């Protein structure tokens, strides 16, 4: 599945949560968001299948911006911009 929403901005930080299971990747992203400033762009790499559903739902609820979600070789790459 590839769902590129728009051109990717420069990545500020990458969270490699591959090998971690739910809710590990989401918790890693939340920690990164807490430590970031508005406008930062964070990439999450997750091999947990639940992440492609849970993380976009969290991004929407938390009011950030889902930049892209791509499935690569055995993992998902989710890019999020801190919006508030």
């Amino acid at each position, binding site marked *: 599945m590839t769902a590129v929403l728009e051109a990717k901005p420069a990545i500020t930080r990458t969270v490699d949560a591959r090998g*971690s*299971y*739910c*809710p*590990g990747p*989401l*918790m890693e992203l*939340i*920690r990164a*968001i*807490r430590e970031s400033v508005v406008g930062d762009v964070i990439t999450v790499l997750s091999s947990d299948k639940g992440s492609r559903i*849970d993380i976009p*739902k*969290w991004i929407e*609820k*938390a*009011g950030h911006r889902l930049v892209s979600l791509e499935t690569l070789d055995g993992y998902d790459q989710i890019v999020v911009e801190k919006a*508030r």
Partner: protein
Amino acid sequence: MDRVLILGGGVGGTLTANLLARKLRSRIDRGQVDITLVDAMGAHVYQPGFMYIAMGGEREERLARPERSLLDAPVNLVVDTVVRVDDGARTVVLASGAVLPYDYLVLSTGCRILPQMIEHFEEEAEHFYTATAALKLRRALDEFKGGKVVVGIASMPYKCPPAPLEVAFLIESELRERGLREKSEVHFCSPIGRAFTIESVSEMATPIFEQKGIELHTFFNVDAIDPERKAVLSLEGEELPYDLLVLVPPHKGQQFLMDSGLAPAPGGWLPTDRNTLRVGGRPNVFALGDATDLPLSKAGSTAHFEAPVVVEGIVSAIEGREPAGRHAAYEGRVMCFFEVGDGKGTLLRFDYEHPPKPPKPNALWHLGKIVFNKTYFHTVPRGRV
């Protein structure tokens, strides 16, 4: 001589020490093996009992035993605090200045709870992760005359994943029994998109929240506590006013593990192989229980089922063979009781490949948990179950 050094006298450390002492008895008697356990308190505390200090008339003094009384005679006990592990030199440095060498190291070091990581937590929020805190929560409940109760989880991972749900259910039951339910609201905040990390358990618990009229708030990651307005604020932008706030505090692994380069900051969880329980690819260092980074419940039950695998890993290495038999590898087995209030409970039993299928809550599983709690000191740490 093969020196086995075990750090931590909780479920994992104590059971590992006793099982090793039995498996290696003849080698110990011949002076070929030494087993030493280091514990900071010299006491073994049954932590799941803390919740019952708050919710079930349990008393602190019934929840601890001297560690020596639970260890088999051949196990040496050192009561001291670990300062550092020097994995290169294969030594552990203690606060007293003593340096203990090892050939095999078992890290059963549990985790730390850190309420102070959230501003105003200590003056505004209650919890049940120490005996003192649980007693304080009991007093707060005794003084509660109705209002908004908020139960939540400050961050993940944390010990005993069902516990905050159990506390929400038990508080709701108590409020009904005391005739305060109609004057109260009960809210439950989960950091993730459902009530519980494991989907099947979430599916079991969500209707119970509905049936009990407990409002479930998902994706609620505690950001701040506002003591002036008596409100807890989430990172996601929600705000919940409270009259009684019960929060699972933030948890971390032990600082000395990070300082020693064994566990990465900021969490301090040991990178542990999910099957062999070896740490960071080291052939002679094992971890179990709350200290690991495994995607499993941080619970005594996890350590209970991990201990025989650690023991087989060490015994096989000492005997110069490969791990064999049913404890050759850890398959992620966990089993724990789950209270739902009104004298009912259920059972969560699962492993890496098989998620739990909790039976319909009934009085039997509640009773099972009570019996387990009462008999714990005679069974689990001594390796009898």
